[in-house]
């Protein structure tokens, strides 16, 4: 599942991953994500850090089961220092990303 408030990013990531034979669902923010999780059980959630609505950290705490990887324009250490993300997460991909890197990371996380 891709969670990002920017439609273009959602769609780009979805397109890339679908090309690599992943089944992808998108959500436009944290609340939407929680809503959609009622219907879908994804293996991995790729989630932006800065989105309108419920803060990402709170959203992440409500998610049980799927691995969470963050996708952010911020550097990982900055995001950690600003206390914007949950303590345990599976991966961190910085935007803008190289698509091969993204695919590799997702492959690793899902495997």
């Amino acid at each position, binding site marked *: 599942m891709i969670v990002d408030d*920017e439609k*273009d*990013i959602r*769609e*780009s*990531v979805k*397109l*890339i991953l679908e*090309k690599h034979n992943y089944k992808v669902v998108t959500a436009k923010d944290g609340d939407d994500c929680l809503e959609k999780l009622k219907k879908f059980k994804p293996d991995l959630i790729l989630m932006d850090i*800065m989105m309108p609505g419920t803060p990402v950290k709170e959203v992440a705490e409500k998610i049980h089961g799927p691995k969470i990887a963050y996708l952010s*324009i911020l550097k990982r*250490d*900055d995001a950690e*220092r600003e206390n914007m993300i949950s303590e345990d997460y599976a991966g961190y991909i910085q*935007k*803008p*990303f*190289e*698509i*091969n890197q*993204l695919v590799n990371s997702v492959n690793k996380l899902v495997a």
Partner: protein
Amino acid sequence: MGEEELKRFKISLKLKIILGILFISGTLIAIAFPLLFSSFDRAVLDDVREDLDVISFFQKNRIQDEIEKSFERLKGITSRTQLRLSLKNYLELSDSEEKIRISKILGDALLSIKDFRNIHVLDTSGVVLASTDKGLEGKILSQENYFKEGIIKDSFNFDEEKELIYLSGPLIFEDTILGAAVIELSNEKFKEIISNYSMLGETGETILGRRNRDGTISFLFQRRFEIFDSSGNKTYLPGVSMNYALSKQEDFFEEILDYRGVSVVSYTRHIPEVNWGLVVKKNREEAFKPLIDLRSTIFFIFIAVAVLSALLIIFLSNQIFVPIKKITQANKSLGKGDYSVRVKIKSGDELQELGESFNNAAEALGKLDEERKQLDKSKTEFLSITSHELRSPMTPMIAQMQMLKEGYFGKLGKEKEESLDIIYRNTLRLDSLIQDILEISRIEAARLKFNFVLKKVEDVVKQTVDGMNNFLPEKNIQIIANIDKIPEMELDPDRLMQVLINLVNNAKKFSEKNSKIFISAKIKNDMIEFKVQDQGAGISKEGQKRIFEPFYQELKPMSKKYEGTGLGLAICRGIVEAQNGRIWVESETGKGSTFYFTIPLIPVKEIKPIRILFSPQMEIERKILDLFKEFLGPLGEQEFSVLKKEKKLELKNLISYLDELYAKQILSQTKLEVFKKKIKEIMVEKEKEANK
């Protein structure tokens, strides 16, 4: 006021005013004191003179009265008809009856007047015919002065030895002198007058004197003070005042020696009836005691007034200077950027007004400062927000381009691929530019994060070098690191790498193919000094000064090829300076450049904001360089770069450097002073800027 000010102003305003007032009052007192004293002197002298004048006049009168009274008593005897008739009869008839009658008259008179000691009646040849002193009858007293004078006229004779007064006068019957009456009178009355010291204090006395036939002077009656010579005899010096008195001079003597040799004030009188001299005198010491008392009283009053006025001056000056001090201190705080400072002066005068207007000014400044801070914050926020916003679209753009490039949507033709490459490359450049601006906005907002961990410098450099080999591989540049043994220390490896990468990238960009880049690090004082040396084209003098400014690019064909964001070195400067380090470059065109920077052995954890985009630092450096050029001519630029290389551009470093130049006789004394003054002005400006 602090010590600092006392050093700066040799005499404080307070001291000046106190000294001024003391000088004025001292002068007034110096003038007034003698005038005051001389008028006191005159007044006291006049008093003493008047005292003695009155007393001596009074004493003279009493003595004259007494003499007159004595003569009247004598008259009372000599004019008695019975006595004269009896005497006549006796002389003619030698009738013993008459003699008894005479004796009776004399006896009655003696009884009725108690001062009378004896009364005799003598005949013209001096034979005592009758006397109250029976033993004297028949004796011849013709040699006695009182007889000699008394047979002719009423006389007054004083006998010192017998302490008696002889009153004598002729007994006349029908124009014929029958004989003389002699009264021995007690001198008690005179003694009483003379020994009345009631108005004469402790040392005053009245003395009576008489000139003897041989010209010597003798005192009548006992004196108040007796003096004895070495053999125990009463003695006295010739009284000078008495001499004047006996010369019939009636006058005041302000300073004269008396019979004891003591300095006295005296008033002389002459008693013509008996040709006596009368002197009333007093020791000067006692006479002028009021003056001395008055002087010491005045002196003590003066001391008291001086002390009181000194206290008053201090009190008044405090009234003035305490508020001034308050305002001065408040002003200092204001200068240091504390706009919340206010002064409380409730003196109800101009100083309170001054304090109030100061407070108003401080408030206005505070508001301005608040606005400026807000503006600064807005600027930083703007930078931060816009960079984030600017970066967001980059992600899908880059992703889509990569997808195109990777053939997600089918294979592209050669021209399309080349076009896409250009778009992609420039998009990446735009992204890194945005990243750099974001970084700068953090440095400026002191939001640059440092994450200190214990690590070896050597490892960080090695990691950097390893990671660098991917950049511009076609140039085949060898990076050689030479790191001193530096123990593990607290540092932020990411930031250190960021600076090193920027410098090495920079070096690579300007290096020729197959050249070398040297990296070294060594401990220098409490810092580690890093050095990144290349063999590239070098940087011009102007470039060296400005290379750390944002967007500065040397106009060179080489640089066009490898355009960066123009912010890399500015960011390096920001990172290094945030850690209180220094970054600089040494270069010679054609011979390569060497970049230096330092980081502290003990990291700085309180990060201060540093201005990069709108930095006054470069401006200040340029101003200082201009001064160097102005004062040293062609040498200026060289000296400035030496200074900049050796030390941080701080006031004390600059001043000591100028002193060195003076010591080397490069600068003259007068130039040195002007130079220092101008440098101070610039640095003060800088300080103000920094405090904001």
